[in-house]
């Protein structure tokens, strides 16, 4: 188990290098999406998730960030990662269910993770288990109507064991969220429904773990949202806040530069 004592900056640098390595190996896209949320995954899945807790990556297109983190935790092997994206792999572009303990559900079709996580939180309430459920969503994903169906269900059922983590980088598939459908992840919307809302710096692990600890310390019958302000492509200078890195794979030169960027910034 990783402890607080770890140098979180180094951890986040290591995870980024692993993410870049995976995308380079597969010549695949969604790099910006993974770099945007990797610090949130570090804070929740790696640093705060207990055995009885559940973590769901609802924005399944950032699977490489999840795989790098599960690898860090020892739940995935080097051989698992070597098969990423390949035919026969247990680690496809979007998470496949029931292949690894840490991935019980298929995600990547957006708007599914929150209803699922809400159901797990409800199950924990029914059985009296004290497990928390972390659901990591993207801000663009909150366009999906199931977000708001699940949000009201969580309120009505007083699921204070549900912690939604929103990767709010302001960009979605083909544009700025403001331009596509407006800011559907606006903290004011969650507050209006009644959620316990805390905002955090999505690239500051200390800020994120503090936010998680703060909301977890309020068993007040109210579900939680941590709105994490992030930058798409964070850590690689030429990818930051650039829409095209939602999809583009890296050339060998771009990969080398990305590794240099992360190495100089995080180590």
């Amino acid at each position: 188990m990783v402890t607080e004592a770890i140098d979180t900056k180094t951890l986040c640098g290591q995870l980024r290098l692993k993410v870049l390595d995976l995308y380079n190996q597969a010549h695949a896209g969604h790099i910006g999406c993974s770099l945007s949320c990797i610090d949130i995954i570090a804070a929740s899945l790696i640093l705060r998730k207990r055995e009885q807790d559940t973590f769901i990556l609802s924005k399944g297109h950032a699977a490489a960030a999840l795989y790098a983190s599960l690898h860090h935790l020892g739940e995935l092997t080097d051989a698992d990662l070597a098969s990423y994206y390949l035919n026969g792999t247990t680690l496809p572009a979007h998470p496949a269910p029931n292949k690894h303990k840490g991935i019980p559900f298929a995600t990547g079709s957006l708007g599914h993770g929150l209803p699922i996580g809400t159901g797990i939180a409800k199950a924990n309430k029914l059985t009296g288990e004290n497990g928390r459920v972390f659901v990591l969503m993207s801000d663009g994903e909150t366009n999906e109507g199931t977000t708001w169906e699940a949000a009201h269900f969580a309120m009505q059922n007083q699921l204070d064991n549900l912690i939604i983590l929103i990767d709010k980088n302001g960009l979605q598939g083909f544009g700025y969220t403001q331009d596509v459908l407006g800011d559907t992840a606006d903290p004011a919307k969650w507050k209006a429904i009644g959620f316990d809302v805390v905002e955090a710096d999505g690239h500051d692990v200390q800020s994120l773990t503090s936010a998680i600890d703060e909301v977890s310390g309020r068993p007040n019958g109210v579900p939680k949202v941590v709105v994490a302000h992030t930058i798409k492509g964070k850590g690689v200078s030429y990818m930051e806040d650039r829409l095209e890195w939602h999809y583009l794979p890296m050339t060998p030169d771009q990969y080398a530069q990305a590794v240099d960027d992360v190495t100089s910034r995080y180590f």
Partner: protein
Amino acid sequence: MKKYTFTEKKDTRSGFGAGILELGRTNPDVVAMTADLAGSLKLEGFIKEFPERYVQCGIAEANMIGVAAGLTIGGKIPFATTFANFATGRVYDQIRQSVCYSNKNVKICASHAGLTLGEDGATHQILEDLGMMKMLPNMTVINPCDFNQTKAATIAIAEHEGPVYLRFGRPVVPIFTPADQKFEIGKAVILNEGPDVSIFATGHLVWEAIQAGEKLAEEGIEADIINIHTIKPLDEEAILASVKKTGCAVSAEEHMLNGGLGDSVAQVLARNYPAPLEMIGVHDTFGESGTPAQLMEKYGLTADRIVEAVKKAMQRKAA
């Protein structure tokens, strides 16, 4: 022709209500969910006795399916209930990703299926649900025929590990299957044996098939009448054994021909034992308002149409 009688008519949805109440008493893991249709799904008894295991999801079916998938973690057995239209077409991606691909132990229980919903009209009369559900890997699809069988099926699916779609309806129909029957998923029920034709019926059309069998017997035609309550996995063995004996078949269902029981029977016959098959069902059209009886007559889902189809199938066999 074996004689089938009834003393009472009830709706199949009430069979579901009775089944889930019994499950509540015998299986503490069973959870009843609804998208604000508790009354229509006959959940009152369950809710009264087990309010802590009742989950109201509001008019938000997609979330209900996702929550059901999540509830299975830790061993709960969620029965997610609403009208068949909203239980399938409206939430197909939720069922596909969160339930079937993720292979979770969710029971989707759907009432008001088919034309017999009646006056509510085409918006609610889903005729494609069996097709959509049977196409999904890991999904079991069940369409029982009367109150007793629906109750027995409801109880049986709790024992089955994996996703299930259980379809039933609104109108009162004769109760002709035994109250004490053991429901075996995937095992067809042979209601009558005869050498001339095989009639494969499901749901509300099973009673029509029995009526057709009586009319045919008066003309000296004895039919195999087989209740295919499980659309998937299909009892291919029973279908082939029957058609190898009779040499021709009729399928009957309250569903679109595309994707329904007849379509499944056709595949089995084409692959294994090609034989004339006539199909009773809805031909690529939406429903409309009307009484259940009017609609079943208009769309040809009656005993008389089954009789005609049998004669056609037998002529084709002889040709």
